[in-house]
């Protein structure tokens, strides 16, 4: 059984009213425990709506959303679902509740009724995982955006969630903050084997995932590994999305007749492929890129 199962999930905002808006239509997919999935899509594609379904913050208009076998529509299981799936939202300021960092991390376990001593040890561990131990007694407004988001991640970890959903958590951060968060996410995936659902519109971030899901106007448009998805650059551009610079550069060089493999996703891939190509070309006496 997959950790997250969506079966023909649809969501309609303001159903039956004048401003009715169909955000998701018949989305079916399953995500296994331990996967790192990036969700891409242009504005209004339903990414955030999807994220909120995973934490039972929104309920399906039709279809089913199951987390670890529990139906989100089942009121009795809502709190167990939310304990399994943690959320990190977009605005770092609007998700920290307490006036001191460690109190905020403790907020989740306190709500779950965990004994004080265990809360303390969970908080200490969560803060050390995200590398914020020395800021434990700071007030949130003294931290940078990236640091605040790391606290939000620690808050979810302290609840011992199995899955973390990032709802455009890096959209309001500077490049440095984005890099910090992505590093923490990778570490959580690799070392703690957390299931990651990473909603973003930064292609470079999506390239770090094992699997990419592309949404378009509330429908599932693509689902595959970064290599498979980025190979369809034309299709992505039709959906209002760009491919990462390294993928695009590789494709253009290939179009110009330079012999490069299809499977270029990251900058490292590109550098390696170019190195190999230069080696071949060198033997033939022709210079690359003239």
């Amino acid at each position, binding site marked *: 059984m997959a950790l997250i199962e969506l079966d023909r999930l649809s969501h309609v905002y303001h159903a039956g009213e004048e401003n009715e808006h169909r955000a998701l239509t018949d989305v079916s997919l399953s995500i296994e425990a331990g996967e790192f999935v990036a969700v891409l899509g242009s504005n209004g594609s339903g990414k955030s709506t999807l994220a*909120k379904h995973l*934490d039972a*913050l929104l309920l399906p208009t039709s279809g089913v959303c199951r987390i670890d076998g529990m139906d989100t529509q089942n009121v009795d299981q809502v*709190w167990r679902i*939310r*304990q399994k799936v*943690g*959320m990190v*939202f977009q*605005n770092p*300021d*609007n*998700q*920290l*509740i*307490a*006036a*001191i960092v*460690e*109190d905020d991390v*403790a*907020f*989740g*376990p*306190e*709500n*779950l*009724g*965990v*004994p*004080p001593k265990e*809360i*303390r040890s969970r*908080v200490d561990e969560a803060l050390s995982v995200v590398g914020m131990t020395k800021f434990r007694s700071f*007030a*949130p*407004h003294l931290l940078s955006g990236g640091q605040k988001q790391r606290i*939000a991640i620690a*808050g*979810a970890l302290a*609840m011992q969630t199995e899955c973390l959903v990032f709802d455009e958590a890096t959209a309001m951060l500077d490049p440095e903050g984005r890099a910090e968060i992505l590093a923490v996410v990778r570490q959580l995936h690799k070392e703690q084997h957390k299931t990651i659902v990473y909603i973003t519109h930064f292609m470079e971030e999506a390239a770090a995932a094992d699997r990419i899901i592309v949404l378009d106007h509330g429908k599932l448009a693509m689902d595959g590994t970064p290599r498979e998805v980025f190979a369809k650059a034309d299709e992505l551009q039709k959906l209002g999305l760009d491919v990462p610079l390294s993928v695009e550069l590789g494709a253009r060089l290939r179009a110009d007749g330079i012999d490069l493999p299809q499977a270029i996703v990251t900058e490292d891939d590109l550098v390696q492929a170019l190195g190999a190509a230069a080696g071949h070309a060198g033997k033939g006496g022709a210079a690359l890129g003239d």
Partner: protein
Amino acid sequence: MLNNITIGQYFPGNSVLHRLDPRTKIAVLFFLIIAIFVFDQPVAYLVLTLLTFGCMVVSRVPMKTQIGSLKPLWWIILFTFLIHLFSADGRPLFHIWILTATWEGLVRGFFICLRLALLLLLSSLLTFTTSPLKLTDALEAILSSLKSIGVPAHELAMMMTIALRFVPTLIEETDKIMKAQQSRGADFLTGSILHRLKNVVPILVPLFISAFRRADELAMAMEARCYRGGIGRTQMKELRFAPLDYVAWGATAVLMVALTAVAILFPKGFL
């Protein structure tokens, strides 16, 4: 202009008063306030005055700051004194126009003002030596005993915590909005008071809209972290009474008993 505002008037420190449990401090303050109002023998005034000054010294909060806490009520204190000075019957001291000051009035006015001053100094001592967060915790603990009569103790404390958390954030935002409006020619600093008040509206409207949006997102974040009110909730930092607190309770009890005894045995005072 808005970046150096501190919340409350807490002075971080490690004095005896800082280390006392906030609940103890609130309870002791409560009893001392009662004592100040109930006992009007000179000896009681003497003891309470000495006690207050003793606490002020022990707290290690700068004396100037502590005396400064009287400032907002300076006029009320002076006014009270003058009313007592001129309204009491007794031996005349001097005349101004149709008013007559009396010896009795002078004495009574002095003691009433002393009462007000002690009250203010002791209450400020609580906020000087207790962080707003600890005060909130204490408030929740004290109010939760009133839960049975419908006092929403946890909700009140949660509201205060969130308010404390968002004060700096909203101040920052106000600053940003003001700068944005100023860059488009708004003027908050000159003109008549009415004019300046009018100019505040373009700050308040965006600030309120944004505050509501924040509240909405915060509510969702709280739900995502399994918040469902105070039921079944635990706390990482539990308030615990230490030996120091028992000493403070004991001392307060002894003081109250002694003052009561003096009041009963020497109703007219012996000083």
